[in-house]
Protein backbone atom coordinates (compact mmCIF):
# COMPACT_ATOMS: atom_id res chain seq x y z
CA UNK A 1 0.00 0.00 0.00
CA UNK A 2 2.86 2.30 0.83
CA UNK A 3 4.08 1.80 -2.70
CA UNK A 4 0.88 3.10 -4.04
CA UNK A 5 1.13 6.24 -2.03
CA UNK A 6 4.60 6.96 -3.25
CA UNK A 7 3.40 6.21 -6.68
CA UNK A 8 0.76 8.81 -6.34
CA UNK A 9 3.30 11.34 -5.11
CA UNK A 10 5.58 10.63 -8.00
CA UNK A 11 2.79 11.26 -10.42
CA UNK A 12 2.27 14.80 -9.32
CA UNK A 13 3.25 16.18 -12.65
CA UNK A 14 1.04 14.01 -14.76
CA UNK A 15 -1.90 14.88 -12.57
CA UNK A 16 -1.33 18.46 -13.47
CA UNK A 17 -1.79 17.61 -17.08
CA UNK A 18 -4.79 15.49 -16.20
CA UNK A 19 -6.46 18.51 -14.76
CA UNK A 20 -6.07 20.31 -18.01
CA UNK A 21 -7.54 17.29 -19.80
CA UNK A 22 -10.62 17.23 -17.66
CA UNK A 23 -12.85 17.71 -20.66
CA UNK A 24 -11.66 14.38 -21.96
CA UNK A 25 -13.27 12.45 -19.14
CA UNK A 26 -16.76 11.07 -19.26
CA UNK A 27 -17.63 11.99 -15.73
CA UNK A 28 -16.23 11.21 -12.30
CA UNK A 29 -16.35 7.42 -12.56
CA UNK A 30 -14.36 7.63 -15.76
CA UNK A 31 -11.80 9.78 -14.03
CA UNK A 32 -11.64 7.36 -11.11
CA UNK A 33 -11.22 4.47 -13.49
CA UNK A 34 -8.35 6.29 -15.12
CA UNK A 35 -6.72 6.95 -11.77
CA UNK A 36 -7.24 3.34 -10.79
CA UNK A 37 -5.52 2.19 -13.96
CA UNK A 38 -2.53 4.29 -13.16
CA UNK A 39 -2.27 2.29 -9.97
CA UNK A 40 -1.45 -0.50 -12.37
CA UNK A 41 -3.23 -3.10 -10.35
CA UNK A 42 -6.13 -5.32 -11.09
CA UNK A 43 -9.28 -3.42 -10.35
CA UNK A 44 -10.33 -5.86 -7.68
CA UNK A 45 -7.09 -5.17 -5.86
CA UNK A 46 -6.97 -1.39 -5.96
CA UNK A 47 -6.61 0.59 -2.84
CA UNK A 48 -9.88 2.39 -2.63
CA UNK A 49 -8.50 4.71 0.00
CA UNK A 50 -5.56 5.70 -2.16
CA UNK A 51 -7.90 6.17 -5.06
CA UNK A 52 -10.23 8.40 -3.07
CA UNK A 53 -7.30 10.46 -1.98
CA UNK A 54 -5.95 10.83 -5.49
CA UNK A 55 -9.33 11.94 -6.69
CA UNK A 56 -9.68 14.53 -3.97
CA UNK A 57 -6.22 15.87 -4.65
CA UNK A 58 -7.12 16.09 -8.27
CA UNK A 59 -10.31 17.98 -7.59
CA UNK A 60 -8.49 20.36 -5.25
CA UNK A 61 -6.00 21.19 -7.95
CA UNK A 62 -8.65 21.69 -10.54
CA UNK A 63 -10.38 24.10 -8.24
CA UNK A 64 -7.18 25.87 -7.43
CA UNK A 65 -6.51 26.63 -11.06
CA UNK A 66 -10.13 27.62 -11.32
CA UNK A 67 -11.40 24.97 -13.61
CA UNK A 68 -15.12 24.89 -13.48
CA UNK A 69 -16.14 21.42 -12.46
CA UNK A 70 -19.46 19.84 -13.27
CA UNK A 71 -21.66 18.97 -10.32
CA UNK A 72 -21.11 15.27 -10.99
CA UNK A 73 -17.45 15.60 -10.10
CA UNK A 74 -18.17 17.51 -6.94
CA UNK A 75 -20.84 15.09 -5.83
CA UNK A 76 -18.30 12.31 -6.19
CA UNK A 77 -15.76 14.34 -4.23
CA UNK A 78 -18.23 14.81 -1.39
CA UNK A 79 -18.97 11.13 -1.36
CA UNK A 80 -15.32 10.15 -1.45
CA UNK A 81 -14.44 12.54 1.35
CA UNK A 82 -17.13 10.88 3.38
CA UNK A 83 -15.84 7.45 2.39
CA UNK A 84 -12.35 8.47 3.43
CA UNK A 85 -13.51 9.56 6.84
CA UNK A 86 -15.35 6.29 7.20
CA UNK A 87 -12.29 4.27 6.33
CA UNK A 88 -9.92 6.17 8.57
CA UNK A 89 -11.92 6.80 11.68
CA UNK A 90 -12.70 3.93 13.97
CA UNK A 91 -16.34 3.23 14.08
CA UNK A 92 -18.37 4.84 16.82
CA UNK A 93 -20.62 2.55 18.80
CA UNK A 94 -23.85 4.40 18.14
CA UNK A 95 -22.96 5.14 14.55
CA UNK A 96 -25.19 3.21 12.22
CA UNK A 97 -24.05 4.62 8.89
CA UNK A 98 -22.75 2.37 6.14
CA UNK A 99 -19.33 1.03 7.00
CA UNK A 100 -16.34 2.28 5.07
CA UNK A 101 -15.85 -1.23 3.75
CA UNK A 102 -19.32 -1.37 2.35
CA UNK A 103 -18.90 1.97 0.70
CA UNK A 104 -15.53 0.98 -0.71
CA UNK A 105 -16.93 -2.26 -2.02
CA UNK A 106 -19.74 -0.42 -3.71
CA UNK A 107 -17.29 1.94 -5.36
CA UNK A 108 -15.02 -0.89 -6.47
CA UNK A 109 -18.05 -2.66 -7.89
CA UNK A 110 -19.16 0.34 -9.87
CA UNK A 111 -15.67 0.82 -11.28
CA UNK A 112 -15.41 -2.82 -12.20
CA UNK A 113 -18.80 -2.72 -13.84
CA UNK A 114 -17.97 0.39 -15.85
CA UNK A 115 -14.69 -1.12 -16.94
CA UNK A 116 -16.50 -4.26 -18.02
CA UNK A 117 -18.85 -2.19 -20.15
CA UNK A 118 -15.91 -0.37 -21.70
CA UNK A 119 -14.30 -3.64 -22.65
CA UNK A 120 -17.58 -4.89 -24.01
CA UNK A 121 -17.94 -1.76 -26.11
CA UNK A 122 -14.48 -2.27 -27.56
CA UNK A 123 -15.23 -5.85 -28.43
CA UNK A 124 -18.48 -4.79 -29.95
CA UNK A 125 -17.04 -2.17 -32.33
CA UNK A 126 -14.30 -4.52 -33.33
CA UNK A 127 -16.73 -7.10 -34.58
CA UNK A 128 -17.31 -7.52 -38.27
CA UNK A 129 -19.62 -4.66 -38.95
CA UNK A 130 -22.17 -4.37 -41.68
CA UNK A 131 -21.04 -1.92 -44.29
CA UNK A 132 -17.40 -2.17 -43.26
CA UNK A 133 -16.46 -5.82 -43.10
CA UNK A 134 -19.62 -7.51 -44.16
CA UNK A 135 -21.91 -6.37 -46.92
CA UNK A 136 -25.56 -6.67 -47.77
CA UNK A 137 -27.06 -7.30 -51.14
CA UNK A 138 -26.10 -4.29 -53.20
CA UNK A 139 -28.95 -4.58 -55.64
CA UNK A 140 -32.02 -5.55 -53.67
CA UNK A 141 -34.93 -6.69 -55.75
CA UNK A 142 -37.69 -6.26 -53.26
CA UNK A 143 -38.54 -5.10 -49.80
CA UNK A 144 -40.55 -7.56 -47.84
CA UNK A 145 -43.60 -5.94 -46.34
CA UNK A 146 -43.77 -7.74 -43.10
CA UNK A 147 -46.40 -5.58 -41.62
CA UNK A 148 -49.98 -5.56 -42.63
CA UNK A 149 -49.87 -1.87 -43.15
CA UNK A 150 -48.57 -0.52 -46.38
CA UNK A 151 -47.12 2.49 -44.64
CA UNK A 152 -43.76 2.62 -43.07
CA UNK A 153 -42.94 4.63 -39.97
CA UNK A 154 -40.94 3.83 -36.89
CA UNK A 155 -41.66 4.75 -33.33
CA UNK A 156 -38.67 7.03 -33.49
CA UNK A 157 -40.13 8.84 -36.51
CA UNK A 158 -43.39 9.25 -34.66
CA UNK A 159 -41.83 10.56 -31.47
CA UNK A 160 -39.45 12.94 -33.15
CA UNK A 161 -42.28 14.33 -35.25
CA UNK A 162 -44.32 14.89 -32.14
CA UNK A 163 -41.48 16.40 -30.15
CA UNK A 164 -40.39 18.84 -32.79
CA UNK A 165 -43.96 19.85 -33.50
CA UNK A 166 -44.72 20.57 -29.88
CA UNK A 167 -41.39 22.24 -29.44
CA UNK A 168 -41.90 24.50 -32.41
CA UNK A 169 -45.08 25.81 -30.90
CA UNK A 170 -43.83 26.05 -27.36
CA UNK A 171 -40.72 28.10 -27.87
CA UNK A 172 -41.03 31.48 -26.36
CA UNK A 173 -38.18 33.79 -25.95
CA UNK A 174 -36.93 33.59 -22.44
CA UNK A 175 -33.51 34.73 -21.45
CA UNK A 176 -32.30 33.26 -18.25
CA UNK A 177 -29.85 35.35 -16.38
CA UNK A 178 -26.87 33.53 -15.00
CA UNK A 179 -27.12 33.65 -11.27
CA UNK A 180 -24.74 32.84 -8.56
CA UNK A 181 -27.17 31.32 -6.18
CA UNK A 182 -28.11 27.73 -5.89
CA UNK A 183 -31.57 27.26 -7.16
CA UNK A 184 -33.82 24.77 -5.49
CA UNK A 185 -33.63 22.61 -8.58
CA UNK A 186 -29.81 22.73 -8.59
CA UNK A 187 -29.78 21.52 -5.04
CA UNK A 188 -32.41 18.95 -5.77
CA UNK A 189 -30.51 17.54 -8.66
CA UNK A 190 -27.32 17.27 -6.68
CA UNK A 191 -29.08 15.58 -3.78
CA UNK A 192 -30.80 13.21 -6.16
CA UNK A 193 -27.45 12.23 -7.60
CA UNK A 194 -26.23 11.48 -4.12
CA UNK A 195 -29.24 9.44 -3.15
CA UNK A 196 -28.22 6.93 -5.77
CA UNK A 197 -24.96 6.45 -3.92
CA UNK A 198 -26.60 5.92 -0.57
CA UNK A 199 -26.98 2.55 0.94
CA UNK A 200 -29.99 2.05 3.10
CA UNK A 201 -28.18 3.35 6.16
CA UNK A 202 -27.89 6.78 7.67
CA UNK A 203 -25.09 8.94 6.39
CA UNK A 204 -23.88 12.26 7.67
CA UNK A 205 -23.21 13.76 4.31
CA UNK A 206 -24.23 17.35 4.72
CA UNK A 207 -20.87 18.69 5.73
CA UNK A 208 -19.19 17.04 2.78
CA UNK A 209 -21.73 18.37 0.39
CA UNK A 210 -21.07 21.87 1.58
CA UNK A 211 -17.34 21.48 1.53
CA UNK A 212 -17.20 20.29 -2.06
CA UNK A 213 -20.17 21.76 -3.70
CA UNK A 214 -19.89 25.42 -2.95
CA UNK A 215 -17.23 27.97 -2.71
CA UNK A 216 -17.36 30.03 0.47
CA UNK A 217 -19.22 32.85 -1.22
CA UNK A 218 -22.02 30.52 -2.13
CA UNK A 219 -22.20 28.72 1.14
CA UNK A 220 -25.23 30.47 2.54
CA UNK A 221 -27.31 30.02 -0.54
CA UNK A 222 -26.10 26.43 -0.81
CA UNK A 223 -27.15 25.64 2.75
CA UNK A 224 -30.53 27.22 2.28
CA UNK A 225 -31.28 25.55 -1.02
CA UNK A 226 -29.89 22.18 -0.03
CA UNK A 227 -31.97 22.18 3.10
CA UNK A 228 -35.12 23.19 1.29
CA UNK A 229 -34.50 20.56 -1.38
CA UNK A 230 -33.91 17.98 1.33
CA UNK A 231 -37.27 18.73 2.87
CA UNK A 232 -38.92 18.45 -0.47
CA UNK A 233 -37.32 15.07 -1.10
CA UNK A 234 -38.40 13.92 2.35
CA UNK A 235 -41.94 14.94 1.65
CA UNK A 236 -41.86 12.87 -1.53
CA UNK A 237 -40.62 9.91 0.41
CA UNK A 238 -37.32 9.71 -1.41
CA UNK A 239 -35.18 10.70 1.51
CA UNK A 240 -35.24 10.42 5.29
CA UNK A 241 -33.65 12.83 7.71
CA UNK A 242 -32.41 12.47 11.24
CA UNK A 243 -30.82 14.84 13.67
CA UNK A 244 -30.01 13.70 17.16
CA UNK A 245 -30.04 17.14 18.74
CA UNK A 246 -29.69 20.81 17.98
CA UNK A 247 -26.55 21.60 15.96
CA UNK A 248 -25.77 17.90 15.65
CA UNK A 249 -24.90 16.54 12.23
CA UNK A 250 -27.84 15.87 9.99
CA UNK A 251 -28.08 12.31 8.76
CA UNK A 252 -29.64 11.37 5.48
CA UNK A 253 -30.72 8.09 4.08
CA UNK A 254 -32.68 6.83 1.15
CA UNK A 255 -36.41 7.00 1.67
CA UNK A 256 -38.96 4.32 0.99
CA UNK A 257 -39.65 5.55 -2.53
CA UNK A 258 -36.33 5.85 -4.25
CA UNK A 259 -37.37 5.83 -7.89
CA UNK A 260 -38.61 9.17 -9.08
CA UNK A 261 -39.39 10.37 -12.55
CA UNK A 262 -35.86 10.83 -13.55
CA UNK A 263 -33.53 9.23 -11.09
CA UNK A 264 -33.56 6.65 -8.43
CA UNK A 265 -31.02 4.21 -9.52
CA UNK A 266 -32.12 1.16 -7.74
CA UNK A 267 -35.35 0.16 -9.34
CA UNK A 268 -34.11 -2.87 -11.14
CA UNK A 269 -35.38 -6.28 -10.37
Amino acid at each position, binding site marked *: MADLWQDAEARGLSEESLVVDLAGFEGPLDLLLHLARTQKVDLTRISVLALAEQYLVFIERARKIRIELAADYLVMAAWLAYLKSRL*LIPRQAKDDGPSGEEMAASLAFRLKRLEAM*RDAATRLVNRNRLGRDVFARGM*PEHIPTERRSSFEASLYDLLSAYSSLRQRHAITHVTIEKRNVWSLSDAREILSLLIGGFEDDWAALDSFILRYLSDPAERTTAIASAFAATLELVREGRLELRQDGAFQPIYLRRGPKPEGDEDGSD*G*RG
Partner: protein
Amino acid sequence: MAEPEDDAPREADGGTIVDPRRLHEAARIAEALVFASAGPVSQAYIAERLPRGVDVLHVMRELKALYAGRGVNLVQLGDSWAFRTAPDLSFVIRTDETEVRKLSRAALEVLSIIAYHQPVTRAEIEDIRGVQTSKGTLDVLMEAGWVRFRGRRRSPGRPVTFGTTRDFLDHFGLEDLRDLPGLEELKGAGLLSGRIPSNFQVPMPLREDELAEDEDPITQLDLEELGLLTPGGKEDE
Protein backbone atom coordinates in the same frame (compact mmCIF):
# COMPACT_ATOMS: atom_id res chain seq x y z
CA MET B 1 -44.99 -6.46 -34.55
CA ALA B 2 -47.66 -9.07 -34.32
CA GLU B 3 -45.79 -11.85 -35.93
CA PRO B 4 -47.09 -15.32 -35.41
CA GLU B 5 -44.41 -16.85 -33.23
CA ASP B 6 -42.23 -18.37 -35.80
CA ASP B 7 -40.14 -20.86 -34.03
CA ALA B 8 -43.21 -22.56 -32.73
CA PRO B 9 -43.06 -25.93 -34.32
CA ARG B 10 -46.01 -26.00 -36.67
CA GLU B 11 -47.63 -29.23 -37.64
CA ALA B 12 -44.42 -29.89 -39.48
CA ASP B 13 -42.25 -31.18 -36.69
CA GLY B 14 -44.35 -34.20 -35.99
CA GLY B 15 -44.32 -35.59 -39.48
CA THR B 16 -42.18 -33.24 -41.49
CA ILE B 17 -42.29 -33.66 -45.18
CA VAL B 18 -39.17 -35.27 -46.43
CA ASP B 19 -39.93 -35.30 -50.09
CA PRO B 20 -36.59 -33.99 -51.35
CA ARG B 21 -38.18 -32.32 -54.34
CA ARG B 22 -40.48 -30.24 -52.19
CA LEU B 23 -37.68 -29.47 -49.79
CA HIS B 24 -35.51 -28.30 -52.65
CA GLU B 25 -38.32 -26.15 -53.96
CA ALA B 26 -38.88 -24.67 -50.52
CA ALA B 27 -35.17 -23.94 -50.23
CA ARG B 28 -35.22 -22.17 -53.58
CA ILE B 29 -38.11 -19.97 -52.50
CA ALA B 30 -36.54 -19.13 -49.16
CA GLU B 31 -33.25 -18.40 -50.86
CA ALA B 32 -34.89 -16.11 -53.40
CA LEU B 33 -36.82 -14.23 -50.74
CA VAL B 34 -33.82 -13.55 -48.56
CA PHE B 35 -31.41 -12.97 -51.41
CA ALA B 36 -33.64 -10.42 -53.05
CA SER B 37 -33.80 -8.27 -49.95
CA ALA B 38 -31.09 -6.04 -48.55
CA GLY B 39 -32.48 -6.16 -45.02
CA PRO B 40 -33.18 -9.18 -42.86
CA VAL B 41 -36.34 -11.12 -43.68
CA SER B 42 -38.33 -12.55 -40.82
CA GLN B 43 -38.76 -16.27 -40.57
CA ALA B 44 -42.50 -15.84 -40.27
CA TYR B 45 -42.55 -13.99 -43.56
CA ILE B 46 -40.63 -16.77 -45.24
CA ALA B 47 -42.80 -19.45 -43.64
CA GLU B 48 -45.94 -17.90 -45.07
CA ARG B 49 -44.56 -18.28 -48.56
CA LEU B 50 -43.27 -21.84 -48.37
CA PRO B 51 -45.32 -24.80 -49.52
CA ARG B 52 -47.59 -25.94 -46.73
CA GLY B 53 -46.19 -28.50 -44.35
CA VAL B 54 -42.57 -27.55 -44.79
CA ASP B 55 -40.60 -26.79 -41.66
CA VAL B 56 -39.01 -23.37 -42.22
CA LEU B 57 -36.35 -23.74 -39.62
CA HIS B 58 -35.23 -26.99 -41.17
CA VAL B 59 -35.04 -25.38 -44.60
CA MET B 60 -33.16 -22.37 -43.29
CA ARG B 61 -30.64 -24.50 -41.46
CA GLU B 62 -29.96 -26.54 -44.56
CA LEU B 63 -29.48 -23.36 -46.55
CA LYS B 64 -27.21 -21.94 -43.91
CA ALA B 65 -25.03 -25.04 -44.05
CA LEU B 66 -25.02 -24.92 -47.83
CA TYR B 67 -23.70 -21.37 -47.88
CA ALA B 68 -21.34 -21.74 -44.95
CA GLY B 69 -18.17 -22.07 -46.98
CA ARG B 70 -19.13 -19.68 -49.71
CA GLY B 71 -18.40 -16.03 -50.41
CA VAL B 72 -21.88 -15.12 -49.32
CA ASN B 73 -23.28 -16.56 -46.09
CA LEU B 74 -26.76 -16.97 -44.78
CA VAL B 75 -26.91 -15.50 -41.28
CA GLN B 76 -29.57 -15.55 -38.64
CA LEU B 77 -30.43 -12.30 -36.86
CA GLY B 78 -32.89 -12.86 -34.07
CA ASP B 79 -35.95 -14.26 -35.78
CA SER B 80 -34.81 -13.08 -39.20
CA TRP B 81 -32.44 -14.16 -41.93
CA ALA B 82 -30.15 -12.30 -44.29
CA PHE B 83 -27.41 -12.98 -46.80
CA ARG B 84 -24.15 -11.24 -46.00
CA THR B 85 -20.72 -11.41 -47.59
CA ALA B 86 -18.24 -13.59 -45.73
CA PRO B 87 -16.30 -11.50 -43.23
CA ASP B 88 -12.91 -12.77 -44.42
CA LEU B 89 -13.54 -11.23 -47.83
CA SER B 90 -13.95 -7.69 -46.57
CA PHE B 91 -10.57 -6.76 -48.02
CA VAL B 92 -11.82 -7.36 -51.58
CA ILE B 93 -15.09 -5.55 -51.25
CA ARG B 94 -14.15 -2.68 -49.07
CA THR B 95 -13.78 0.45 -51.11
CA ASP B 96 -12.78 3.94 -50.19
CA GLU B 97 -16.38 4.99 -49.96
CA THR B 98 -17.42 2.32 -47.51
CA GLU B 99 -17.83 3.99 -44.23
CA VAL B 100 -19.69 3.09 -41.11
CA ARG B 101 -21.27 5.45 -38.68
CA LYS B 102 -18.72 6.87 -36.28
CA LEU B 103 -19.89 6.79 -32.72
CA SER B 104 -18.60 8.96 -29.95
CA ARG B 105 -17.10 7.21 -26.96
CA ALA B 106 -20.11 8.15 -24.88
CA ALA B 107 -22.56 6.86 -27.46
CA LEU B 108 -20.67 3.62 -27.79
CA GLU B 109 -20.64 3.17 -24.04
CA VAL B 110 -24.35 3.86 -23.76
CA LEU B 111 -24.99 1.47 -26.63
CA SER B 112 -23.16 -1.37 -24.94
CA ILE B 113 -24.82 -0.70 -21.63
CA ILE B 114 -28.20 -0.89 -23.33
CA ALA B 115 -27.20 -4.03 -25.20
CA TYR B 116 -25.93 -5.89 -22.15
CA HIS B 117 -28.38 -4.61 -19.56
CA GLN B 118 -31.60 -4.38 -21.51
CA PRO B 119 -34.31 -3.60 -20.71
CA VAL B 120 -32.61 -0.72 -18.95
CA THR B 121 -33.86 2.67 -17.82
CA ARG B 122 -32.06 5.90 -18.37
CA ALA B 123 -31.43 6.22 -14.63
CA GLU B 124 -29.73 2.84 -14.64
CA ILE B 125 -27.54 3.80 -17.57
CA GLU B 126 -26.51 6.88 -15.68
CA ASP B 127 -25.88 4.90 -12.55
CA ILE B 128 -23.51 2.62 -14.43
CA ARG B 129 -21.67 5.45 -16.15
CA GLY B 130 -21.75 7.72 -13.13
CA VAL B 131 -22.61 10.65 -15.30
CA GLN B 132 -25.67 12.18 -16.86
CA THR B 133 -26.33 11.17 -20.41
CA SER B 134 -25.99 14.21 -22.56
CA LYS B 135 -28.88 15.10 -24.79
CA GLY B 136 -28.35 13.70 -28.18
CA THR B 137 -26.52 10.55 -27.20
CA LEU B 138 -29.62 8.41 -27.01
CA ASP B 139 -31.02 10.39 -29.90
CA VAL B 140 -28.12 9.40 -32.13
CA LEU B 141 -28.50 5.75 -31.22
CA MET B 142 -32.21 5.77 -31.90
CA GLU B 143 -31.75 7.58 -35.16
CA ALA B 144 -29.21 5.00 -36.23
CA GLY B 145 -31.96 2.48 -35.60
CA TRP B 146 -29.93 0.51 -33.07
CA VAL B 147 -31.79 1.49 -29.94
CA ARG B 148 -35.50 1.71 -29.26
CA PHE B 149 -37.96 2.36 -26.51
CA ARG B 150 -38.93 -1.08 -25.26
CA GLY B 151 -41.62 -0.47 -22.68
CA ARG B 152 -41.98 0.65 -19.13
CA ARG B 153 -40.59 -0.76 -15.93
CA ARG B 154 -43.19 -1.90 -13.48
CA SER B 155 -41.81 0.21 -10.68
CA PRO B 156 -42.70 3.57 -9.15
CA GLY B 157 -42.67 6.24 -11.81
CA ARG B 158 -42.94 3.56 -14.51
CA PRO B 159 -39.73 4.67 -16.22
CA VAL B 160 -39.33 3.89 -19.91
CA THR B 161 -36.89 1.13 -20.74
CA PHE B 162 -34.49 0.93 -23.66
CA GLY B 163 -33.36 -2.02 -25.70
CA THR B 164 -31.60 -2.82 -28.96
CA THR B 165 -33.16 -3.55 -32.36
CA ARG B 166 -32.76 -6.14 -35.06
CA ASP B 167 -30.69 -3.64 -37.01
CA PHE B 168 -28.30 -3.61 -34.09
CA LEU B 169 -27.87 -7.38 -34.38
CA ASP B 170 -27.47 -7.00 -38.12
CA HIS B 171 -24.92 -4.26 -37.90
CA PHE B 172 -22.71 -6.03 -35.41
CA GLY B 173 -23.22 -9.47 -36.91
CA LEU B 174 -24.91 -11.03 -33.90
CA GLU B 175 -27.27 -13.91 -34.32
CA ASP B 176 -28.87 -13.30 -31.02
CA LEU B 177 -28.37 -11.11 -27.98
CA ARG B 178 -26.94 -14.16 -26.27
CA ASP B 179 -24.02 -13.86 -28.67
CA LEU B 180 -22.90 -10.53 -27.25
CA PRO B 181 -19.20 -10.94 -26.60
CA GLY B 182 -18.43 -11.97 -23.05
CA LEU B 183 -22.06 -11.93 -21.98
CA GLU B 184 -21.88 -15.13 -19.95
CA GLU B 185 -18.73 -14.18 -18.11
CA LEU B 186 -20.12 -10.76 -17.27
CA LYS B 187 -23.29 -12.33 -15.98
CA GLY B 188 -21.34 -14.87 -14.00
CA ALA B 189 -19.24 -12.13 -12.44
CA GLY B 190 -22.43 -10.34 -11.40
CA LEU B 191 -21.44 -7.31 -13.46
CA LEU B 192 -24.74 -7.02 -15.23
CA SER B 193 -26.63 -6.42 -12.05
CA GLY B 194 -27.43 -3.32 -10.10
CA ARG B 195 -26.34 -4.87 -6.88
CA ILE B 196 -22.98 -5.91 -5.65
CA PRO B 197 -22.84 -9.66 -6.06
CA SER B 198 -22.31 -11.58 -2.84
CA ASN B 199 -19.10 -13.06 -4.15
CA PHE B 200 -17.66 -9.69 -5.10
CA GLN B 201 -14.18 -9.39 -3.66
CA VAL B 202 -12.72 -6.14 -2.52
CA PRO B 203 -9.61 -7.15 -0.71
CA MET B 204 -8.44 -3.65 -0.11
CA PRO B 205 -10.17 -2.08 2.71
CA LEU B 206 -9.74 -4.80 5.23
CA ARG B 207 -11.57 -4.21 8.42
CA GLU B 208 -9.94 -1.40 10.27
CA ASP B 209 -8.46 -3.62 12.89
CA GLU B 210 -7.05 -6.13 10.46
CA LEU B 211 -3.78 -5.60 8.70
CA ALA B 212 -2.47 -7.30 5.66
CA GLU B 213 0.75 -9.19 6.19
CA ASP B 214 2.76 -6.58 4.42
CA GLU B 215 1.17 -3.67 6.13
CA ASP B 216 2.02 -1.50 9.11
CA PRO B 217 -0.65 0.25 11.05
CA ILE B 218 -1.17 3.78 9.85
CA THR B 219 -0.57 6.46 12.44
CA GLN B 220 -1.67 10.01 12.87
CA LEU B 221 1.87 10.96 11.93
CA ASP B 222 1.66 9.05 8.69
CA LEU B 223 -1.52 10.76 7.78
CA GLU B 224 -0.06 14.18 8.32
CA GLU B 225 3.01 13.24 6.43
CA LEU B 226 0.94 12.07 3.53
CA GLY B 227 -1.05 15.23 3.58
CA LEU B 228 -4.18 13.27 4.20
CA LEU B 229 -5.32 15.30 7.14
CA THR B 230 -7.02 18.40 6.05
CA PRO B 231 -6.12 21.57 7.92
CA GLY B 232 -7.91 21.66 11.22
CA GLY B 233 -7.79 17.92 11.49
CA LYS B 234 -11.43 17.51 10.68
CA GLU B 235 -10.96 13.83 10.04
CA ASP B 236 -9.98 13.45 13.63
CA GLU B 237 -13.14 13.09 15.55
